[in-house]
């Protein structure tokens, strides 16, 4: 036995690997194998209902279709707009509200509990809630506007112009609490000495917020960006319930587009290629954030 091997045995490294092995094998079977199989299937032309018929090899045909598909281009643009818009608002609002909660001297626990409520509701129920709240005929918003002397509600879900911002609004309502939670936790980790020093220097509220608090919670900001970017990029349930991609294709997103090609048009080979594209692009987004987190020693 070589000295190096003896050393690994003694310090428990091998034992560690051995204990880790079952989990690695399990992950390989449950995640990597299906993933590899999806990639293989994306190279075939086949319909979901034709499970027992031979699949037709198309090579990169589905990927070429993906490049030239106007429907996908539209869905991609909508998804990016949705992701950038919703995540930006959630981050800004989250910072402002977290700051307010951070400075609260009383009722902070109650405020946190109330703030977190939207997050615990399942997205499908949230979507239904907003569908009826913003219904231009019967929704509470329409009723209030009428009571205030207006002419009923605004047709959010039936308007190509407003439907996508409407979806962002729903996402912001539900997931800003996530940003608040993470950012507030980051703020609680800032040492008291920094605030005392700022007070001695006569720094005002905004100066403290932007020169002390914000730089200190950049890792938390990156975490919010990482998770919310990934989630909004893969958005499906809210859109499915509220608009199904309409009116027209104004709210069609990558998730919905993939689902429709797979389960409505039954083009599973193409849907697999779309899934691979979705995975690759979301991986790219994640890689950027993870790199930034590594630079800050967070990973």
């Amino acid at each position: 036995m070589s000295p190096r091997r003896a050393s690994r045995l003694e310090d428990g490294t091998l034992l560690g690997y051995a204990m880790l092995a079952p989990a690695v094998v399990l992950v390989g079977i449950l995640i990597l194998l299906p993933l590899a199989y999806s990639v293989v299937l994306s190279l075939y032309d086949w319909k979901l209902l034709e499970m027992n018929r031979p699949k037709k090899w198309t090579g990169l045909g589905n990927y070429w279709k993906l490049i030239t598909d106007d429907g996908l281009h539209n869905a991609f643009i909508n998804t990016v707009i949705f992701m950038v818009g919703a995540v930006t608002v959630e981050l800004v609002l989250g910072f402002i509200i977290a700051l307010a909660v951070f400075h609260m001297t009383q009722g902070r626990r109650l405020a946190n509990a109330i703030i977190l409520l939207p997050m615990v509701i399942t997205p499908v129920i949230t979507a239904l809630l907003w569908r009826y709240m913003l219904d231009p005929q019967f929704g509470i918003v329409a009723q209030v506007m009428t009571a205030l002397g207006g002419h009923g509600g605004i047709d959010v879900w039936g308007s190509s112009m407003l439907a996508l911002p409407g979806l962002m609004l729903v996402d912001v309502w539900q997931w800003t609490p996530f940003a608040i939670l993470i950012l507030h936790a980051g703020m609680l980790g800032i040492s008291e000495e920094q605030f005392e020093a700022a007070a001695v220097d006569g720094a005002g509220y905004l100066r403290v917020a932007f020169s002390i608090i914000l730089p200190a919670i950049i890792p938390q900001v990156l975490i919010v960006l990482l998770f919310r970017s990934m989630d909004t990029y893969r958005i499906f349930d809210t859109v499915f319930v509220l608009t199904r991609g309409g009116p027209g294709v104004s709210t069609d997103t990558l998730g919905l587009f993939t689902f429709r090609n797979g389960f409505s048009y039954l083009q599973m080979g193409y849907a697999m290629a779309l899934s691979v594209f979705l995975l690759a692009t979301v991986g790219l987004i994640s890689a950027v954030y993870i790199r930034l987190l590594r630079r800050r020693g967070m990973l």
Partner: protein
Amino acid sequence: MSRISIGLLAGLVLVAGVPVAAQAADPVGKFDGATLSLSRWAGDPWTAAQVKSADAWNAATGGKLTVDAIPYENLHDKQVLEMSNGTYDIMYVHPSWFGEYVSAGALLPIDDLLADASANPPGFSKNDYLPSVLSQGASGGKQYCLPDFVASVVVAYRKDLFDAAGLAAPKTLDDVLADAAKLNGKDGIAGITLPGKKTGATADVLGSLLTAYGTWWYDKDGKSSLDVDAATKAIDFYVKASKFAPQGILNYHFDEVATAAAQGQAAMAVSTTVSLSWVEDPAKSKTVGKWAYAPLAVTADKPSGELIYWNWCINAASKNPKAAYSFLQYWTSAAQQGAVAKVAATAGATKAFYEDKDLVASLPFLPALQGALQNANAQPSLANWSKVQDEIELAVQGAIEGKTSPADTAKAIRAMLDKELGG
């Protein structure tokens, strides 16, 4: 599939004194220990009625049939996913899915069962069904499914508002538009409401309008045959009517149309006879008893519509096909459909249904339905219709939003049909 005239349907009702075909109300067969699952959309009173029928069938046959009811919007996806593993024995199949299911070999032909005397009540034959409706469940010379849920798209109009405005009942599509214009905005009520969402409802309404204007999506060989001029007129009606509709119709399925009508939000409604039953339901409607119904028509002497129906089919992977057929036969019988019709504004697909004078007299929607079905095309059931329908509805939404003209929309739809179906 070619253009289908369903005058027979109306004619049958007028046939007085014809002896009602013998069709026993009791299920046929004994299936002790057989367990079956049925897939359908969720919605009462249909689901509740079917669960009740399943219980009766279970008690009579010794089988155990359970009903799996899920929202319509998810039904196709669920059926496709569960089809090959035999989870479902009986499936409620929408016309637009029928073609793809048949072409995939997912449905069991039932010709032998239909002809088997031991599997049917005494005196029963496939001729007990309306031929024009039964044929929608056939393909390639084989019968796969039994139909029920006969309905069509009609116009409902508020008698009280029409009387107050001194308007006569609308007889043509021009009348509908003129009346909608006159009534729109009075007391905050929209002139008309109709669906505009991409859920099949928009294609159903446009299909009915196309038939009224004398054209159809495809010919008897399934090849693109849409007449662009006629389609332009149909889309033009859609666009003009939408100007008098409540806000939000691009997100309206038939349900929302019926709700708006029931809540007194519109003077007229273009929708299915089924969904319009809501306006007569005191539990859902503020406008009970104020409605009358008329078929769509370009000229008053030629009412038109679309044959809306559903197919009951047996999964090719079913382990209990004979038991499944027993329930299909039982459920689509005149007795079962008659019980449902009284509360659900549907009609059956057996001749005996229309020969029951008391039943017919108790169905206020039937005259408009029968009028609509005198000149009707059946809901399309081609293998790739799901995608085609999506494209059609997308184009119509663009026209309603004013992004394209009716003429350009009609041309675009024709071009798409040429590409997808072959011209």
